[in-house]
């Protein structure tokens, strides 16, 4: 079993290094194929481990080597494969294998094809370290690793110039990459503080020891640690107010958006909350804050998705919204439901993104859905995939999203938090509306793209075949709810609906379904028969507010970026140039001047030298006399 753990973990690293060898050479298809094959190996190993853990119920602990061992500090490179991490491993490797195969087709014309695979596999390796580590230090290494890979991949087309957009002052892949990285740095500080607090009070970073020592800690320490860790989770999972980077991260290639910014990396925050569930269940205030923030973000992000015109950004907002759902579940104590939604969401959201990638490929990188329409004729399979994924996202039975999202909404009802419940139900309706607004505008109605002289074509066959596992999983994942519950609750706390909720389950489900179907019907009515622009609404205050993302990017620009730039400018001109540089230059100038001055002493005349020597001797003599006299 130990070997399987290493294979699952290191196959992506080998793949990354292999592709990295060819990083500077021109596009070679075999690099993509070898990478995909290695990822497939990793996936097989992960699934075998999952089966093993499912059969025996016993987690596998592996300590590869000691890392830091001095004094009281002991941090090994240890890995744990238990019910939670094996679920994440399965999800990560399945999605990344599909994305790797997809990328062979999608990045076909890119000259940095090999480099792309190197980064993508490095990301998978970091993600595996993140989920498999058995201590907070390893988690943090993975956490930063995925951050770096995310930066590399968002900025993959770093040569593209900055563009100004209405809702954002300036946007380019390198700008977006930096934004994502910097926002994550802010949150990672919180995470580090949390880890330090735990280490300071427990003296260990191993999950098992930390969680065992929690009952002895005071409430204030627990609350601070939980809050600090959650700030880290907020950055990685792009929760308000650190959410702006996720939509801008759509500047990266679409496979990256699918893998990193939908299915895996952004769920790391949810994973952290689930992993540290003993801590969060002991701090009910923090947990409630998580649930409330999650619900707010679910609603907030869905509202922005309602009016967006950018194909990928709509899906990004939807990811944000679904992450909110996961946090709502985790905050309410239903950790296994959060994990279940995480897995189900990864499948259908990756499918949705990859479908969007097909559309982009067909439309020559055009992303405005107002310029598409009627694509279902040319792109039958993409239409089916995206339709299926949208149905799953909207929560239509019997697809995956119905089971997982419904369970979260039911949890909100069960906890008696009615406001959260109402917001989540309304959000479910909005989700259905924006998903199908997008599907109808892209695939139905009049063929608006013809005006722009674009001739869309379907994606390669092998790419479409490669997407089928995701489609199947998005369709059937929901049926494993019961088995999944039994599997993960051996590790995670049990969460059951009360008797009362159980009786109302059908009614509650029906309410959610009504909202979802209502959303789809509304979208159908408005958009299925072609785009009819409604100038009055589009110029209305609410529409503008949503289209500009509540003016939050502008706000950040005005209150953070610009003052920061001003302070930097001031410090540069007054402190750096006038104090730091002046001091250093002064020393250099003094040395030059004194050298120039004393050079005249060197006349070459021995007599002069002897005079100088005598003067020196006299000076020394005077000093000696003075010091003798003074004491």
């Amino acid at each position, binding site marked *: 079993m130990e070997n399987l753990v290493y294979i699952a973990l290191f196959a992506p690293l080998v793949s990354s290094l292999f592709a990295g060898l060819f990083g500077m050479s021109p596009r070679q298809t075999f690099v993509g194929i070898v990478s995909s094959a290695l990822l497939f190996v990793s996936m097989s190993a992960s699934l075998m481990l999952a089966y093993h853990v499912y059969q025996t119920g016993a987690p596998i602990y592996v300590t590869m080597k000691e890392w830091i061992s001095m004094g009281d500090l002991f941090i090994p490179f240890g890995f744990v494969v238990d019910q939670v991490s094996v679920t994440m491993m399965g999800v990560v490797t399945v999605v990344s294998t599909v994305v790797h195969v997809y990328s062979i087709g999608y990045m076909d014309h890119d000259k940095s094809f090999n480099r792309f695979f190197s980064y993508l596999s490095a990301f998978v390796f970091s993600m595996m370290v993140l989920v498999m580590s058995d201590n907070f230090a390893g988690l943090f290494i993975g956490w930063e690793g995925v951050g770096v890979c995310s930066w590399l991949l968002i900025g993959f087309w770093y040569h593209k110039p900055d563009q100004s957009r209405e809702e954002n002052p300036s946007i380019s892949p390198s700008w977006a990459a930096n934004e994502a990285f910097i926002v994550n740095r802010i949150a990672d500080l919180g995470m580090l503080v949390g880890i330090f607090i735990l280490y300071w009070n427990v003296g260990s970073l191993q999950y098992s020891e930390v969680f065992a020592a929690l009952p002895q800690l005071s409430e204030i320490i627990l609350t601070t640690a939980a809050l600090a860790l959650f700030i880290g989770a907020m950055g990685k999972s792009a929760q308000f107010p650190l959410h702006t980077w996720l939509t801008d991260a759509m500047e990266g290639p679409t496979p990256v958006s699918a893998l990193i910014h939908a299915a895996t990396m952004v769920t790391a925050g949810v994973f952290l909350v689930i992993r540290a569930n003993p801590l969060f269940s002991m701090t009910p205030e923090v947990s409630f804050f998580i649930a409330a923030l999650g619900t707010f973000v679910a609603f907030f992000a869905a509202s922005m998705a309602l009016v967006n015109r950018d194909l990928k950004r709509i899906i990004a907002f939807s990811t944000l919204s679904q992450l909110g759902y996961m946090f709502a579940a985790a905050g309410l104590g239903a950790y296994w439901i959060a994990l279940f939604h995480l897995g189900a969401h990864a499948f259908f959201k990756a499918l949705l993104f990859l479908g969007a990638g097909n559309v982009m490929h067909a439309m020559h990188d055009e992303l405005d859905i107002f310029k598409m329409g009627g694509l279902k004729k040319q792109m039958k399979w993409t239409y089916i995939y995206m339709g299926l994924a949208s149905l799953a996202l909207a929560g239509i039975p019997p697809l995956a999203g119905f089971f997982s999202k419904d369970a979260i909404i039911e949890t909100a009802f069960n906890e008696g938090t009615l406001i959260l419940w109402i917001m989540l139900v309304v959000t479910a309706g909005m989700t259905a509306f924006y998903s199908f607004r997008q599907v109808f505008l892209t695939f139905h109605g009049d063929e608006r793209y013809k005006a722009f002289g674009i001739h869309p074509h379907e994606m390669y066959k092998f790419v479409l075949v490669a997407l089928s596992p995701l489609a199947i999983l998005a369709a059937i994942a929901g049926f494993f709810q019961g088995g999944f519950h039994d599997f993960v609750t051996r590790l995670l706390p049990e969460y059951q609906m009360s008797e009362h909720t159980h009786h109302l389950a059908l009614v509650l489900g029906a309410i959610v379904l009504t909202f979802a179907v209502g959303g789809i019907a509304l979208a159908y009515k408005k958009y299925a028969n072609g785009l009819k622009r409604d100038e009055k609404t589009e110029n209305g205050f609410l529409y503008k507010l949503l289209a500009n993302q509540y003016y939050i990017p502008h706000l950040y620009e005005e209150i953070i970026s610009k003052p920061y730039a001003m302070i930097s400018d001031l410090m540069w001109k007054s402190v750096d140039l006038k104090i730091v540089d002046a001091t250093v230059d002064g020393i250099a100038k003094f040395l030059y001047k004194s050298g120039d001055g004393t050079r005249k002493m*060197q*006349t*070459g*005349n*021995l*007599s002069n030298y*002897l*005079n100088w020597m005598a003067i020196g001797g006299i000076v020394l003599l005077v000093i000696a006399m003075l010091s003798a006299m003074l004491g």
Partner: protein
Amino acid sequence: MIGLSHYLVVSALLFSIGLMGVLRRRNLLMLFFATEVMLNAVNIAFAAISHFYNDLTGQMFAFFIIAIAASEVAVGLGILIVLYKKQGSLDLDELTTMKG
């Protein structure tokens, strides 16, 4: 009665004369003589102090200095002769080839 201080005054006077010679003279040979005068000024001081303290070490040191000065003169005069042959002059103002 001639005491220690008389000897030391003579020694200091000789040393100063030698030093002035070193500083003022332009001829390398004269410079050489001046350094000899300084060495012998020190020898006088050594011998006088040695006698004053009834300690022979100082006089022994004076002998050492005489011996070393003799060998130094031998080497130094040799160099001077070579230099004179090469440059045709021993005037320091003309020997400024090391000017920086």
